[in-house]
């Protein structure tokens, strides 16, 4: 028994979003640049959103829970990007570097 919509089973979406999440995770762990790192985080949040919307569509299209959570993820992603990039800009201004490995001091 499977949930299938127009020939697409639910797990196709889940696998794509898992792959996207892992790519984002790799970007977050392995990049030597704070902005590239944030891009990885954005990809991970998007993967989560795919999951939320896919579950909403396949399991409970009549409720708006999945949509609401996806909207909140969208908002939080924007807030996270705004503050994160502001920090990066501020750090760059004082240290002239945005390599996360070099940022080991709590004080600028």
């Amino acid at each position, binding site marked *: 028994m499977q949930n299938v919509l127009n020939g697409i089973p639910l797990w196709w979406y889940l696998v794509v979003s898992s792959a996207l999440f892992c790519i984002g995770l790799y970007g977050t762990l392995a990049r030597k640049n704070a902005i590239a790192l944030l891009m990885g985080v954005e990809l991970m949040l998007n993967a989560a959103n795919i999951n939320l919307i896919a579950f909403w569509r396949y399991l409970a299209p009549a409720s708006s829970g999945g949509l609401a959570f996806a*909207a909140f993820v*969208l*908002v939080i992603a*924007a*807030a996270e*990007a*705004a503050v994160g*990039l*502001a920090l990066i*800009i501020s750090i760059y*201004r004082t240290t002239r570097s945005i390599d996360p490995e070099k940022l080991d001091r709590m004080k600028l």
Partner: protein
Amino acid sequence: MRTDFAFVGVMLVTAALLMGVTLIAASLLRPKKPSKAKLETYECGMETVGDTWVQFRVQYYILALVFVLFDIEAILLFPIAVAFNSLSFFAVANVILFIVVLLIALLYAWRKGALDWE
């Protein structure tokens, strides 16, 4: 709904094809005589000094930041606006509270001089 968006997809592809064909046709028709001087970066007849990375003002980032926050507000307000006619007084009061809180954010940014463009 999906069939609604199908036309958007077709439109994207068609527009891209039409414009691409125009560009390619133009590239076949037009003369092509590049020279070193022609391919230099334009700078009012002067030679370019330094690289393109001039120092940008952080003001650009801050304006984009304020914009992002109003943008995310909008995506929450649009579905509510669609449902507006059937909302109760209580719900509308809360929406107004939401908007007023955001107005406070704007006024804060204004006071802090984040909106000033000197």
